[in-house]
């Protein structure tokens, strides 16, 4: 375990030695941002919309009390979405989609000697391949989390009004009440942390793949498992430290 962690730290250090020119790094980062960001919009949209809808319906079911105003449902959907569901669930979804893609891609490059080909040319393969992924994830994850927040709250609105759990006015009153702007900051800080963990852990697992196709599959699975565990631990640590 400690050996792996040490290897991970050395790997992270190697990303920042002998980096490519800013122009190459910029172009590669844009490519990776498209791969990580644009290609993930659909799944993030679907997941967050339904999570918001389900949250609204379930909160409504649990708050069936005449003494509690219905607008509380909107308030709770907003708080749960911003504080936890949007950053954490989105990141877990992205750990599955982006993490496995990063690990699988790098693992395949490793076993087909494409990484060796870069090294023979005198290129720092870790920096050339991984650093743009890391920067792209740090840029794109917060944007996806903001999208997830918006769609989740919108999903709650649609579900709440369609099922007559509450009126549109009650929902809007709820999501506007007692708003704490710091919660948005907290969610974005979490998304940065999760982006770093998912992209770096998946890259690490993929980069050190050896063997054949079976090992590439195993590396992808391990990357996702480790990333999800890291995200959940980091989620707890962030909540303890920042709230």
């Amino acid at each position, binding site marked *: 375990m400690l050996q792996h962690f040490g290897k991970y730290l050395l790997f992270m250090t190697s990303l920042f030695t002998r980096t490519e020119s800013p122009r190459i790094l910029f172009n590669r980062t844009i490519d990776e941002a498209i791969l990580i960001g644009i290609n993930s919009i659909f799944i993030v949209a679907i997941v967050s919309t339904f999570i918001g809808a389900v949250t609204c319906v379930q909160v409504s079911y649990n708050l069936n009390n005449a003494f509690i105003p219905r607008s509380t449902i909107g308030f709770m959907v907003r708080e749960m979405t911003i504080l936890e569901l949007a950053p954490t669930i989105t990141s877990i979804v992205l750990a599955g989609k982006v993490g496995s893609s990063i690990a699988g891609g790098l693992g395949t490059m490793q076993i087909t000697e*494409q990484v060796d*080909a870069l090294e023979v*040319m005198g290129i720092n393969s870790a920096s050339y391949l991984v650093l743009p992924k890391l920067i792209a994830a740090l840029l794109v994850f917060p944007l996806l989390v903001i999208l997830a927040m918006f769609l989740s709250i919108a999903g709650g609105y649609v579900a709440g009004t369609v099922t007559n759990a509450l009126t549109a006015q009650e929902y809007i009153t709820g999501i506007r009440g007692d708003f704490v702007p710091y919660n948005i900051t907290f969610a974005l800080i979490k998304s940065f942390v999760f982006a770093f963990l998912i992209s770096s852990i998946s890259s690490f697992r993929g980069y050190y793949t050896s063997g054949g196709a079976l090992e590439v599959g195993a590396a992808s699975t391990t990357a996702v498992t480790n990333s999800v565990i890291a995200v959940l631990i980091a989620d707890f640590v962030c909540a303890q430290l920042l709230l």
Partner: protein
Amino acid sequence: MIEIHNIHKTFGDKKVLDGISGVFETGKTNLLLGASGTGKSVLLKCIVGLIKPDLGSVTFDGTYFTNNKLDIRQEIRRKIGMLFQSSALFDSMTVEENVMFPLKMLAKMPKDERLDRVNFCLKRVGLENANKKMPSELSGGMKKRVGIARAIAPDCTYLFCDEPNSGLDPLTALKIDGLIKEITEEYNITTIVVTHDMNSVIEIGDKIMFLYEGKKLWEGTRDNILDSDVPELNEFIFANRLMRDAKKVEEGEA
């Protein structure tokens, strides 16, 4: 010229290379010959710096490479072209982008010049019209050709080929061998080819180093390899019935 001195490499408790020394001459096709698992590819990777030897040194035209300063090693690496066993083409790039890649990364030349150089290299390996093809659309032989084009694109001084014939039919293998030899002589570069193919030995083996269980057992040329008195080498050469028959004919004629 590439010189290696007393190269040792161990993985766990398995000794893969055991004190190998030798000289690989410029303008000649130098072969590393041996059965599978004798350490040929590991030796090649030690020479190009992909694997760090436990002991020993490598020098490129008198410049010490192993454990030298990073910038000196980088400078030497920029003169190295390598053809990998699996071709190692970047599968997200077209043939043109693959060949242009080292020029883009290493050579400071305008885009037009880069494109001219790519077209020249592709023409040299007989793939004039393959610029826009993806690696997945190429046959094994074509992939090797693109690999060679990519290796020679930045005007390499040293060419390394790791089993260039693996997975190819005998005719295509001969063409690839011929191409490697032609390029070596035309550009006067130092070429090292890892192989276990006796056809390659006969066709292009200007200088041959035979490895057995991590040790250098024999060194010579294709002209005297059939007359060697090393039992392990003879066992390797004459495992093939065709070679045994050739030997009988040669002895009959003698």
